[in-house]
């Protein structure tokens, strides 16, 4: 079986599909460009679109790991809030080093705690995630209330340390990020084990992989990227107010959509690159809808909701979706 000829064929086909997808995207962009009085494909607007996509990209990269190992975590929104604030606090003390370290430490620690809870308790992660989100939101609220009581507000960077979240640095961050994710996910035993566990727990176990270790590692890696995303986020927004009432859960929506887009193109692009295409397309979509005058708060959301559904349909076609 399996001579090389069909493999080569497949390879060529894949390349062609990649070109086709990108060409299709470009065509859509061109149409939008014309429809918006040539406001869409300007250098400045492209910069805006890409820079809006940076933070979701980091979060989504993180989520690939936890999703793949079956750890759907609805608390990431609340983790981003806490990690951003922590990054802000350390950032004001120690500059950029503090900002990034603060995000990383908080992201990794909170994801580790989640991992611990998910694994030790064997709770379905999406349930436990809601529980943890509730707890994290409350912690944020305690912090924020304390700050308001003492006449202030939660940490704000003001005009300091804002470079990381702005063009061009935020976009530049994508490059080392992409390389790191690719290597971790596709070319290390961490990634391999995570994918194995996500696909078939029992067998993986019998093959001698400790699934809990793999899952826990996936949470830690996820924490790294969420932490980085949070640091960039804090630099981007300057100040992030904690919210209660499980309102942070909605944060997962956009990264989730990006993961879906990525896995809908799983046969064509590596999922790591797919994520970037996904987050940028989403950011372009919102930008284009606004340029086209589609009202936000109603129709833009309908479009996004339908997009999620459409993309998921496509992504379910392939055998190996990331989202289960």
């Amino acid at each position: 079986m399996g001579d090389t000829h069909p493999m080569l064929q497949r390879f060529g086909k894949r390349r062609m599909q990649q070109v086709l997808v990108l060409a299709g995207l470009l065509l859509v962009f061109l149409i939008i460009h014309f429809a918006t009085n040539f406001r869409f494909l300007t250098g400045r607007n492209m910069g805006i679109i890409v820079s809006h996509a940076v933070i979701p990209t980091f979060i989504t990269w993180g989520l690939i790991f936890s999703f793949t190992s079956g750890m759907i975590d609805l608390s990431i929104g609340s983790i981003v809030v806490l990690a951003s604030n922590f990054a802000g606090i350390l950032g004001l003390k120690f500059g950029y080093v503090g900002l990034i370290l603060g995000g990383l430490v908080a992201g990794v620690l909170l994801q580790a705690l989640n991992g611990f809870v998910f694994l030790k308790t064997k709770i379905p992660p999406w349930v436990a995630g809601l529980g943890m989100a509730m707890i994290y939101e409350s912690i944020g609220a305690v912090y924020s209330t304390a700050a308001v009581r003492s006449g202030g507000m939660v940490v704000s960077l003001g005009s300091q340390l804002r470079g990381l979240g702005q063009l061009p640095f935020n976009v530049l961050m994508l490059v080392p990020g992409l390389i790191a994710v690719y290597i971790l996910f596709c070319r290390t035993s961490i990634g391999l084990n995570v994918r194995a566990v996500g696909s078939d727990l029992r067998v993986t176990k019998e093959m001698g992989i400790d699934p809990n270790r793999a899952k826990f590692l996936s949470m830690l890696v996820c924490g790294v990227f969420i932490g980085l995303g949070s640091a960039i986020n804090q630099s981007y927004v300057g100040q992030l107010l904690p919210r209660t009432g499980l309102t942070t859960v909605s944060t997962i929506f956009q990264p989730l959509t990006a993961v879906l887009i990525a896995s809908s193109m799983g046969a064509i692009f590596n999922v790591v690159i797919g994520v970037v295409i996904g987050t940028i397309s989403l950011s372009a979509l919102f930008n284009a809808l606004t340029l086209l005058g589609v009202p936000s708060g109603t129709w833009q959301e309908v479009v996004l909701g339908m997009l999620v559904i459409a993309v998921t349909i496509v992504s379910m076609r392939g055998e190996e979706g990331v989202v289960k």
Partner: protein
Amino acid sequence: YKIGFNNALSGVYCLDILENFAVYGAEALGVDLMVVNDEGTIEKSISNVENMIASGVDGIVYFGLSDATFAIVAKMCADARVPLVLYDHLPTPDTLAHLRNNPYFAGAVGEDDYDAGYPIGEFAAATGAKTAVLVTGNRGDTTHEARVKGFTEAFEGAGGKVLDIAWAATGGRAEALKKSEDLLVAYPDVDVVYTTSGEPAVATMEVLQKYADLGIQYYVTDLDPPILEGLQEGKISAANGAHWINSGLAVALLHNFLEGNPIKDANGQAPVFHVPIIVLEAGQYKAYEEQWLNNMPFTPEEIRNLSVKYNPAASAESFETLLANYSVEQRIMDKFEAGIITEEDLERYGF
């Protein structure tokens, strides 16, 4: 006394400030304040009232997310013989008429969100601006719907046009940043941007910084520290909203009722007090920061003066006088006269 107080959604700065002032007022009056968080849902705000009643509060100061909740809550209170004061969100005339038949309805203190948007719309139009885009909170949120409506009616009434509205939903500041930036790409020629809500306002302010070359006028309702800074630095043309004080006054109003001095308006009915919407000019930043945020705008003494327990003459008039004089200048001068702030401070504040 123990008084129950609801925060509609903890974590929203303005609501937390309202809670904060209520706590301050309660301390001044020597009453306990029990605070609950409704997490932004109507169901929870109602069941929280029942739970507070069950826990034996002597009165309730209530924020209604929907007009329909007032009647229910008032009935619960009447059944339990617990007096009720509404704060911030005021009932519609019909509902008010209904509430006034309820002996346990002790009045309301709030401001009209329509009136927050309207003057800004007028003001913007008066500068000759022709077009505007708005960045605001959630679709369906009465506060923001009313402010948007106020602005739009004033602005369009004066011949302007509102080109687009970004409903920034709950994504917080990050989402607002993106939405306002996309909006500015779509309408680079717009004359005016107005945001009705603290978080989107800060976000939009930052975006506008990047587009300073476009010369867009920027207006804001809702003040929080970053907005104040923006005002001071001239990034904002004008802002209103400032510090809501209705929550603390509502506590004082309720306190009178509990002390056996139900305050009535001129017609002998449960009163509705409107808190003026103070407008903050750029130069008043320091004063506001020090005298509103770091210290409360009113002294405990002034709040005590509103209650019959400390001031036998307390009446509707006491509230009305206090409110009539609620402006930034007046407050500062009052504090100066009371010896709380020095002449030096006055100079620093630019008076």
